[in-house]
């Protein structure tokens, strides 16, 4: 099985699910997704300077009637903790997060030292009670639907973790 998700397939699924805006701070792994969605007329792409900003912008978009997706790296998620708490969990704003899992690929390859962001990511999401799915290949794309449905059902943030670079 080919690892990594096709950027085109992911972008198509994002559109199919009715997302209107993608708030993204690209990293090395999501660079191709960023380029793909930036070329699409169906999505508005907003690139803030830090992830906490992005969370707050997405919260404003949703409150105003849009359906944003936030794409960020796990390291940025750690920076954005206060925004996620304040603009997502507390006010029950159903933010959908697509999180690049820095350190995953290296850990799978047995590289040392293990990136400290890798083991902290899932426990951090669990501590916030954020339901999380793994999006590791095109065969997993339905987890984006599951994440979307759960956010709508609970009116709370949900997430998918992407372990490999988009291709």
């Amino acid at each position, binding site marked *: 099985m080919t690892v990594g998700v096709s950027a085109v397939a992911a972008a198509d699924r994002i559109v199919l699910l009715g997302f209107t805006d993608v708030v993204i701070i690209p990293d090395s792994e999501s660079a191709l997704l960023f380029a793909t969605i930036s070329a699409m007329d169906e999505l508005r792409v907003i690139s803030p300077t830090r992830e*906490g900003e992005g969370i707050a*912008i997405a*919260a404003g*978009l949703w409150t105003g009637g849009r359906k944003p997706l936030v794409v960020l790296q796990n390291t940025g998620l750690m920076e954005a903790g206060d925004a996620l708490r304040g603009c997502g969990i507390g006010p029950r704003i159903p933010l959908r997060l697509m999180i690049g899992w820095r350190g995953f690929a290296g850990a799978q390859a047995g590289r040392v030292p293990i990136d400290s962001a890798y083991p902290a990511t899932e426990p951090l999401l669990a501590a916030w009670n954020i339901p999380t799915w793994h999006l590791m290949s095109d065969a997993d794309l339905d987890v984006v639907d599951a994440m979307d449905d759960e956010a709508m059902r609970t009116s709370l943030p949900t997430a998918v973790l992407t372990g490999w670079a988009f291709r």
Partner: protein
Amino acid sequence: MIERLELLAAAAELRTNEIVVMTMTATLQWPQVSTSPLDFDFLAFGMGHASNFGLGLALAQPDRRTIVWKGDGGLLMSLGSLATLAQHGPENLIVILLENRTYEMTGGQPLPTRVDFEALARAAGVEGGGTGGTGTVERWSTIVEARHGLTRILVEPGPHFVVASVTNSAPLPPVAHSDHAARVTNLRAALGL
């Protein structure tokens, strides 16, 4: 220097159908001059991010303006938001920085003294920036300037970033810890969502 409550009252008088997002001490005084369902208390929603939230709202609601009352301590927590405003700020967004040079909400601790917020906004590209290339940056130091400025920016395309030099001599009411989810639900209902 402008008496903050006088500035807020002037804005409430001129305001029509705008969404108003406020944070920190403005959340204590804005309710004294306005009870609109389009008012949104951002207190405790994420430190430094009121204008980011307002930017999202303004993009989502292009047919009405969004006004954000923001503190200078909060801006220091999110200086990058100025660059985001310059890049993605829509024409219907107004950010008014209540510059009092202190962390007033936490006891009046001083801010770094040499920061020039107006210059920072200009250097970030807000003037002439935003999605329409119509961004403005200005400073209000008197209530007369503020009244003129408010009248203008409530009709002219932005995004507008204003540094309002304020002081406060009015007693502040205690913080109202209202339900966060209800604040969102109420604003969405007022927007017909």
